[in-house]
Structure formats: structure tokens, C-alpha cells
């Protein structure tokens, strides 16, 4: 077990070229990493090196560049497997992102395993990417979807977890960390319940893998999915982890080149996993860039990353609780909250629209997100059209939070 040590944030900040730029004449304060993180030069340079020195198509090439590119692509798979402690590197499928990973499971597993009348269990706090693919599957198969509710603190209701899993669903699909509330969900508990009656569990790790240690074997998740661009890596690369015995039984998702071992006029044989699920020339620079991001995160230590964000959340919650008219959504305890703070700002009881808040913050060089954060059912339940969300990562500081809070005070004066 590595010791927890505090990160040298000013040294980390030097690694991120974008943090040197100004926005509207002010130094950039980037509080939108939950949507997409910034990239250290180590990642940018690794991608540049690939295109500058060994760019070629992978697999089957009998030339130096192709062999080097293949080696880097497959080394990335091993690195990602180790990062989330998968037992085997074949259990790592490269996709376009979290969304494609979930679509792959809903299609390649779902269409052959979910039947009329079957139950799929989701939660009310899911991102649209973990709702819509299941709705399409349910419609096609005449299956049902039921939702685990959340309480007034944005925490999943324990009785619902038990009650819905007792109905023997085919699969439970749940986010590890909510992209709106920041809630860290009790995945081990959910998996334990589910496995008692043979229910599979898919975990959406888009907001967890970038921010905390994740061990898929310890969680015993059947499928675990995440995106590269939220964890210092490039866009267009994501990961589906699946247990070997499940992936092997699944039909292909997309088909064509790279995923076959033999093609005849009337039938074809597919390659083994993971290649069966990687049809066509893949995004080659994506995994190579992602591997550089994993190296970077490992050099910091994921426990330290988590501690840094926990400290920022604790500090921000304390500061923001003193801002008059500010309502914060989600758990108040940093122990069960990731680095996401969602809020609304009221002026004499009337809502300052989140778009107005983020627009004025932008004029101060501060980037936050406003809208429904791809979680419309969650906002419908709270009866809110939109919310503001500030999210933190390894390069954010307490000084930035101070500036953010004083900008909020300015906004109140502006709109009153």
C-alpha cells in the first residue's frame, strides 16, 4: 500500500500548456473537468510522437512502423488492464468512449440475453448514455426498466436497491460516481446483491476511473466502462472491461475487417476477444495517448488524486455554504462525494438562470458547465430546468475556488 502524500500542484500545473492561456483577459480557471479534462504535455507529445515517427496501421503489417504501432497499441491495452486491475488484458476492449461501451453491451449482450418481460434496473441519477441504450433494447425486446430512486441528499435509496434486485433483473446498470451529485455509489453492495440471483452489473465509471483507485476484480463488476478524455487522455477513446467468460459468449457488435479470422462467401469465423469487438481500423493514437495519461496518473498515485479532490470538495463546500442564496445538490460528506459540485444560485428567492451564471463566470475566465448535464430525468425529479456544475481535477487549487466564490458574489450584485 502506497502512502498518501499531497500533490505538488504548482508543478502539476506546469505540465498543462492550456493553463497558461487567458480567457477574456483573465487567467483561465478550468472547473469543467467532469465534462472533459485538460491534457498534460506528456500526453500531447506521445500522440505527436506516434504520428511523427511510427504512424502505420496495426496488426498484420510486415514492416517496422506497423510492428511498432501494433506493439504500442497492445502495450496500451496491458497498461489499462493493470490500471483498473483487470485479470487479463483481453478483457479490455477499446471503444470510442463510455457511450459506445454501453451501446456495445446493450446490443451485443442485451439483444441475445434480454427477452420479453425481462427487467432492466437503472438508477434515477444516470447519464443519458446509461439510459437511452437500455430504452432502445427494452423497446425492441418488450422488456421493462425500473429505476432505483435517490433521496434528498442525492444518495441511492437502500431499500430500492434490495427491492428491485429481488425482482431478478437481467442486468443492473449504475454509475460509480454521479456526474451531477458527485455521489459515490455503493457498487460492491449492489454487485453482492445482484450476484446472489445471477443478475449482471454494468458500472459506468466515466466519473470514477479518472478520480480514484478502481479495482474491477475487487468490485466484481461484470462490465465496467469509462472514457479517456475525462482522465487526461484524448477524445474518441474509451474502454469496455468485461469478464472474459461473458465477452466470449457475446456476439460481435460491429463487423468487418480486423475482427475476423476467416471470411468465406457464406460465413465467417470471428477472432477471439478482444479483437472480435474491434472491427475496422481502430483509433490507434487514442489508446497510445490514453496509456500516457495512465502513466501520468500513476506517477501521481490515484489515492493522492482522490485525496486532493476530497480536500478541494471539503474546502469548496465550506466556502460555498457561506454564499447567500446558493443551493448545493448532492451529499454534503466529501467521503461519499467525488470532485463535482452542482448548485443553483437564487437572488431574493428567484433563480438566476445557470446559463447567466456561467456566462458571467466566463467573462471572469472561469469555465463551469450549466444545463442538464445529460441527466434530464434527475433534473425533472428536482423540478429544475438546469443547474450549474463546477468540477475539479489534479490541477485545481484552493486559490481558484476562492476566485470562483468571489466571482459568484459579483454575479449576485450584477443581477440584483
Amino acid at each position: 500500500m502506497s502512502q498518501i502524500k499531497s500533490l505538488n500542484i504548482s508543478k502539476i500545473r506546469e505540465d498543462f500548456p492550456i493553463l497558461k492561456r487567458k480567457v477574456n483577459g483573465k487567467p483561465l480557471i478550468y472547473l469543467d473537468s467532469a465534462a472533459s479534462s485538460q491534457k498534460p504535455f506528456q500526453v500531447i507529445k506521445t500522440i505527436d510522437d506516434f504520428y511523427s515517427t511510427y504512424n502505420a496501421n496495426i496488426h498484420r503489417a510486415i514492416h517496422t512502423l506497423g510492428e511498432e504501432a501494433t506493439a504500442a497499441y497492445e502495450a496500451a491495452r496491458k497498461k489499462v488492464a493493470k490500471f483498473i486491475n483487470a485479470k487479463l488484458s483481453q478483457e479490455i476492449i477499446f471503444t470510442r468512449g463510455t457511450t459506445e461501451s454501453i451501446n456495445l453491451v446493450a446490443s451485443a449482450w442485451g439483444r441475445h440475453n434480454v427477452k420479453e418481460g425481462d427487467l432492466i434496473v437503472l438508477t434515477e441519477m444516470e447519464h443519458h448514455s446509461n439510459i437511452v441504450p437500455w430504452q432502445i433494447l427494452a423497446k425492441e425486446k418488450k422488456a421493462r426498466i425500473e429505476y432505483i430512486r435517490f433521496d434528498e441528499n442525492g444518495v441511492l435509496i437502500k431499500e430500492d436497491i434490495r427491492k428491485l434486485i429481488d425482482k431478478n433483473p437481467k442486468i443492473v446498470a449504475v454509475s460509480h460516481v454521479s456526474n451531477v451529485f458527485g455521489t459515490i455509489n455503493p457498487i460492491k453492495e449492489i454487485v453482492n446483491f445482484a450476484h446472489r440471483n445471477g443478475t449482471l452489473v454494468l458500472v459506468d465509471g466515466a466519473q470514477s476511473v479518472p478520480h480514484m483507485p478502481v479495482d474491477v476484480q475487487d468490485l466484481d463488476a461484470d462490465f465496467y466502462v469509462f472514457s479517456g478524455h475525462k482522465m487526461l487522455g484524448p477524445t474518441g477513446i474509451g474502454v469496455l472491461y468485461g469478464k472474459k467468460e461473458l465477452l466470449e459468449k457475446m456476439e460481435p457488435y460491429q463487423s468487418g475487417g480486423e475482427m475476423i479470422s476467416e471470411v468465406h462467401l457464406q460465413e465467417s469465423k470471428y477472432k477471439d476477444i478482444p479483437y472480435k469487438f474491434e472491427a475496422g481500423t481502430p483509433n490507434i493514437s487514442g489508446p497510445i495517448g490514453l496509456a500516457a495519461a495512465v502513466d501520468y496518473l500513476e506517477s501521481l498515485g490515484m489515492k493522492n488524486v482522490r485525496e486532493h479532490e476530497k480536500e478541494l470538495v471539503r474546502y469548496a463546500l465550506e466556502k460555498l455554504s457561506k454564499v447567500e442564496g446558493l443551493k448545493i445538490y448532492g451529499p454534503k460528506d466529501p467521503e461519499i462525494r467525488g470532485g463535482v459540485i452542482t448548485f443553483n444560485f437564487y437572488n431574493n428567492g428567484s433563480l438566476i438562470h445557470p446559463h447567466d451564471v456561467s456566462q458571467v463566470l466566463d467573462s471572469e475566465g472561469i469555465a463551469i458547465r450549466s444545463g442538464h448535464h445529460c441527466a434530464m430525468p434527475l433534473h425533472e425529479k428536482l423540478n429544475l430546468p438546469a443547474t450549474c456544475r463546477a468540477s475539479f481535477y489534479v490541477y485545481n487549487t484552493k486559490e481558484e475556488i476562492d476566485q470562483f466564490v468571489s466571482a459568484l458574489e459579483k454575479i449576485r450584485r450584477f443581477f440584483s
Partner: protein
Amino acid sequence: MYTEIIMDYYKYPKNRGKIQNPDIDFKDSNPLCGDVIEMSIRVNDKHIKDIKFDGTGCAISQASASLLTEMVQGKSLEEIKKLDKQELLENLGTPNLGPNRIKCALLSLKVLKYGVYSYLGEKLQTQE
């Protein structure tokens, strides 16, 4: 972006409310940001006799709706059909709004035009 005109109409909106028994009553929303605008109108001899707006949303959407009700007071329905979006944007003092916020500013005009077209039994051809 937050011009004095916008902040003034946002903080002290004119013509906010609903007309009783209106001839035209049309409501629409901007699903992405949650702005909602409703226009209720009394028509007399194919001219706007009275118009009010109601709704919730960002400063730009609400200010735009309030300003628009003043712009079209007394105008003929044919004139409203021809009303150019640039005129509204310029009156707001924001002729060059970016792609994200222009939808906020133009929701009121969209609601007004849909209302007028459906009152006349015609179909609005939208560009978007």
C-alpha cells in the same frame, strides 16, 4: 453580452403577464437550457391590439421577450410575419450573439411567429 438594455428589461420587464381570453396563445421552450416563453395576444382587425409574455429562463430570453412585445404593439400580423430576427438582436444591443446564446434571444420571436402563423391557419417555414 449583458447590455444595459438586456439588464433593464430583465430586471424591470414590461408587458409581463397573461391576457384574459386571448386570440393567440402560444408557448414554447428551449429544451437545452430550459427557457420557456408564452405569448398571449389580443387581435383586432388583423393587428395586435394587446400582447403580453410570460415565462422563465435566462436574462437574455426574458429581456428579448419583453422588448419584442413593445416592438410589435399595434403592428399588423403581416408585418410580424416579415419581422427580421436581426432587428430584434440589434434592438437588444447584441447583433453578434454566438451560436449558444442566439437561441435564447430568438425564442420569443419564434413563439410569436408560430402563434401568428397558426392563428392565420398558415404554416411557418423555418430555416433551422
